[in-house]
């Protein structure tokens, strides 16, 4: 198997060649991107590798990333502003975050291993334990203003008192609603539904009025379960969400997990929940934009796409909650640096990732996508220029971030084997919202996760 070509990649390529003509109407390839997802009408352009800079440059920095569609274009644009005549950039789109990690592990020990990789925050534990990367501190310039980064981010990516990776694209999960439709249904759109109960009420009212088929949609992703726990101030995993020590269990079948699944089951049984698919960020957004449901929960990285493409008044709101609002965990990704980086490339890599996270670039990145700027100076500048007043949809994520109490629950989980854990939980969710066997099925998922976590600990420790 080629190092940067997994089976799925191969299939993707074959398929792309075979149905090139269909591609236009099939939406983006990046529909499965964690925390990103296309907006459904972007054009991939087809080329997954973009070379920037002088061919005769001394160094080439290979960057692997998971930003497709509109996010990919913004990513390339920011990278394109990086001016260093000694450096050539090769930006290589790998697919979803899952693909990025799988391809990165597969490339280990080969010449194809990238210098810089953008990795989802979920995979931090595994990436850290793999030993394939060095702390990003090692390559950052001495005067680099790490203090300016938002504390929620540096806290997450600081392990053993060392900043391991550099936050670049960060998000949280927010609610979206169709203001026009709520008005048409005779609801008060200024009183956005922010609890599970009111979300169901508002959504069902729109369905009853015949305005849409479903009340709500969101991609089936463990991130949202984690959010519901964090909002209640409870950790999804034990041992401080896996940060104090290896997590040994997931609290899935009790407390918020149970309550959310009961609510979700009820929605599903009454045909109020539109299932866009597992980790189907883009499909959920498409369904919301097609007015199939008046409410959506999704990453803030979809804001730009929603605002651009909605034929109605699209607003954003806080992530609906069971009751409390302690805070929301971070999402998105960060840059990791190859452990075997050539000495003479260290400075170049350092200045490249500094550039990607510099205040101006982060402001642009925020405005083009909906990811919040990773730096306080970026937030301040946007505030000063009145950006959030003019574009209130972009404000929700920032407000959620600033209203988050820093606790183990809101810091977010840090667990090994996150792909398998996620798949296990997500499959259980699907089963439960069909069968209603909450205790047994969620309990089984918990046991499966315990086994996975135990194996991980045994192997890695």
């Amino acid at each position: 198997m080629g190092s940067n070509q997994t089976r799925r990649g191969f299939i993707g390529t074959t398929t792309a060649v075979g149905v090139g003509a269909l591609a236009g109407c099939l939406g983006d390839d990046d529909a499965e991107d964690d925390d990103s997802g296309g907006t459904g009408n972007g054009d991939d352009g087809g080329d997954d590798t973009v070379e920037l800079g002088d061919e005769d440059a001394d160094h080439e920095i290979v960057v692997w990333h998971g930003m497709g569609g509109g996010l990919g274009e913004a990513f390339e644009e920011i990278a394109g502003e990086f001016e260093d005549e000694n450096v050539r950039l090769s930006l290589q789109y790998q697919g979803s975050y899952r693909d990025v990690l799988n391809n990165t592990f597969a490339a280990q020990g080969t010449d194809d291993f990238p210098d810089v990789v953008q990795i989802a925050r979920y995979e931090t534990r595994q990436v850290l334990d793999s030993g394939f990367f060095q702390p990003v501190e090692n390559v950052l310039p001495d005067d680099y203003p790490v203090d300016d980064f938002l504390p929620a981010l540096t806290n997450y990516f600081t392990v053993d008192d060392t900043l391991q990776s550099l936050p670049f694209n960060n998000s949280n999960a927010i609610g979206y609603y169709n203001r026009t439709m709520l008005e048409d249904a005779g609801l008060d759109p200024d009183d956005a539904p922010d609890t599970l109960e009111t979300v169901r009420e508002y959504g069902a009212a729109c369905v009853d009025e015949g305005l849409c088929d479903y009340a709500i949609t969101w991609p089936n992703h463990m991130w949202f379960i984690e959010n519901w726990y964090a909002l209640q101030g409870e950790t999804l995993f034990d041992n401080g969400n896996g940060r104090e020590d290896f997590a040994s269990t997931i609290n899935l079948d009790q407390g918020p997990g149970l309550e959310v699944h009961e609510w979700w089951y009820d929605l599903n049984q009454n045909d109020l929940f539109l299932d866009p698919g597992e980790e189907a960020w883009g499909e959920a957004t498409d369904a919301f934009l097609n007015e199939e449901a008046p409410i959506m929960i999704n990453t803030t990285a979809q804001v730009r796409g929603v605002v651009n493409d909605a034929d109605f008044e699209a607003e954003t709101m806080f992530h609906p909650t069971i009751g409390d609002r302690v805070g929301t965990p971070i999402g998105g990704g960060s840059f990791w640096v190859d452990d075997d980086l050539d000495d003479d490339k260290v400075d170049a890599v350092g200045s490249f990732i500094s550039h990607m996270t510099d205040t101006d670039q982060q402001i642009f990145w925020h405005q083009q996508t909906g990811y919040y700027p990773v730096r306080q100076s970026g937030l301040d500048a946007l505030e000063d220029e009145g950006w959030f007043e003019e574009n209130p949809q972009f404000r929700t994520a920032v407000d959620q971030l600033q209203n988050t109490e820093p606790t183990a629950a809101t810091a977010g989980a840090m667990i090994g084997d996150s792909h398998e854990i996620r798949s296990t939980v997500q499959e259980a969710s699907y089963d439960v919202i069909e069968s209603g066997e909450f205790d047994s099925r969620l309990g089984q998922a918990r046991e499966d996760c315990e086994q996975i976590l135990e194996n991980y600990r045994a192997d890695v420790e």
Partner: protein
Amino acid sequence: MSTKAVYGGGPRGWLVALALLAPTFAAAGVFLYYPAVRALEMGFYRTRFFGSQRTFVGLDNYAQLLTDPGFQLSVGVTVAFAAVVVVGVMAISLPIAYWIHEVESGTTYYMLATIWPYALPSTVASVILLYLLHPSLGIGTAWLATIGIDFNWFRYGWAAFTLITLVAVWNQIGYNVIFMLAAIHSLPESLTESAVLDGVSRTRRLLWIYVPLISPTLLFLLIMNTIYAFFGTFAIIDITTGGRPGGVTNIIIYDLYRNAFEFDNHGIASAQSVILFVVVGLLMFAQLKYTDRYTHYGT
């Protein structure tokens, strides 16, 4: 020149024989036997980070698999899927091949129409059917809804299983028709003539005269279709259902891929591949052994 003279006797003859066989042995060794041995070995480890770190666990992987309800379901689903696909493909292909054989005009067009789906990579076939039958976007699903069938394969296991079976069968028909048609064509014309003179009906002619005579081809197809159902249908699952819902489309080859490349555990995937090998091996053996009695190779 006799055979003996070419290969000679004694040590020189042996050397020549070895030299001639060496490329085959080398290829088989490097690409078949070495990986097979490695897979067997890796099945005793739990691996991480693309195999760069591994822990010896003995038969744990096998114990874990055999007691895992998920894997048990996977085995059951795989066997059921293979049975439906093999029977379905052959039951549909046989009459089609026969009709093409019998039809008086436009034979070429019928052949083309039947065989082109085979020219389509199964990934492409899957993508096309994915969008035709997508639960909320598909035009086919919309038609089905008008006659009261809720073909939501995100939700219903039967729908998902039907979907992957449909794609697999449709994609494999062309291959079967080519072989069946060639086999029927190769039968002597006099046989057909005498059967027609004797007033044997079309259906009887197919079932009682042609089928026994082309049985070696059918056996070959049975085996090829079995291998296809077990190994060749990965892309279909990967593109459409992803093993969902509730694991009812999670056939072993897909589960194995997920374990190896999604969940980063080559050890358990290797153990699965060994189990898969044993299952398919036994099946092949049974098929050859059992059908041999009914297969007519001529005299």
